[in-house]
């Protein structure tokens, strides 16, 4: 397994993409459920946004395990994007975003 460090731009880009996917999920759920309480989803979106925005002001630490964490985050982000056309339920989105946010927070933790 390669231990080459990804550059911080690439990792930040992954975090930004995760935040964007979280917002897309919120908007998709809202479109399908305009009258429903979406606050749990919104909280996840904010957490993803904060993971990204907090990292932009810091430097990526020299920890090669970030590469695997980034790959996991990208997979989750792509999974969310892939579900945008099909998943309508707020509860289903909360579960998916919960996983996404956990991974985003983990990746953001590499920025110190």
């Amino acid at each position: 397994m390669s231990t080459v460090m990804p550059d911080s731009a690439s990792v930040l880009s992954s975090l930004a993409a995760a935040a964007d996917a979280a917002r897309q999920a919120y908007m998709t759920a809202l479109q399908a459920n305009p009258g429903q309480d979406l606050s749990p989803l919104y909280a996840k979106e904010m957490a993803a946004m904060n993971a990204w925005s907090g990292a932009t002001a810091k430097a990526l630490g020299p920890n090669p395990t970030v590469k695997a964490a980034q790959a996991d985050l990208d997979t989750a982000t792509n999974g969310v994007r892939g579900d945008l056309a099909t998943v309508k339920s707020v509860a289903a989105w909360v579960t998916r975003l919960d996983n996404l946010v956990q991974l985003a927070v983990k990746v953001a933790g590499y920025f110190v």
Partner: protein
Amino acid sequence: MGADIEQDVYWKSAQTLSRILKESIRVSPDNTVATRSIVRCNKKEIGHSMSGRPNKRFPVRRVKALPLVIAGALLASCATMPTAKLSTAAALAKAGEVAASQMQRNVTISSASLDLFVKAVAFNDGFNATPAAAGSTTLIANVKVIQGNLVQYENLLQSLSSAYSAMDDLAEYGASTDLDSAVSNLASDTETFSKKVGKEITIPADVTKGLQESGNVVVGSVQTGKVIKASAQIESILEKIVAILSEPTVRSAITPIQPQLQGVVGQAAFILYTQGVYTYRPILDELGAPLGLESSSNADAIVRSNKRVEAGLAGVVNQTVNSQIASATEAYDQGLAALRALEQQHKKLQSGEAITLQNLSDIVANLRALAQVSAPPTTGIAK
């Protein structure tokens, strides 16, 4: 000093007369002599530019006092005058000023936009019954830090625009008063920006000095020499700016903020849209325009009673938000392309090659288009 000025005036006089002569005997494509008025040329050439701006490099009072015989004797030198280079330099400077200004407009997330972002977050918090302390306070604080980087980027672009404006003044009117300070400001703002984005550089002192040495108003070969030197100075700094902006870390530290801010603002608008606050009619009219169709006055009621149509229109709104987000990132890349294009044209100017501004002009047009996507004249969905 006085002798130098007189010599410059004579030199300029000859240059002007040469141009007047050329203008007055210019032959049109059908081999007939063009009927340009010498009087009109005189007015344009001697006292004022086309825009009515006083021509600082050729004070009219001195010209009137010149013995025509001396000026006439100097005409022979006119064939070798570097006016073409000055015109080329002026064209490049104008193009650079336009490009930098347009880039600045694209980059600008003005304080009003940040205010709008804060309002949008507040709305989103309220709509979702989520206290700010649960997330958005941190977000806004983080975004303001990133905003600081962008403000410095804007300052840099403003300085670049000013440096080009000063170069234009030098090429057009021989005015070099503002150039030293403009280039110094550009160097200083470049250094500050590089520090902000963690790519600190220092512009060597020799890059920013030396233009003021032979007077505030210059003509002839002195003017051309200064213009070329100014071009080299700007190019030298431009090269460093391009290198910084090309860094992936700088790109990612700057570009995500605009998409994310637009995303949050767009989200607030989308929430309101899905709640039926806005009229659907602008979108309906836009879709119907190619067929000459307009929405009827009861269109909103029809849409709201038809979930499939409503979902379709919500998709259009969502897509619009995403287009705006993508345009902000593209604008950064286009801006960088504009700076690279300028860099190439500086090299050509200095080596005496013909410059080509079409590519730059195309990029600026793209930037304008992207700015319109990012901030449509009628923001929001309401008609």
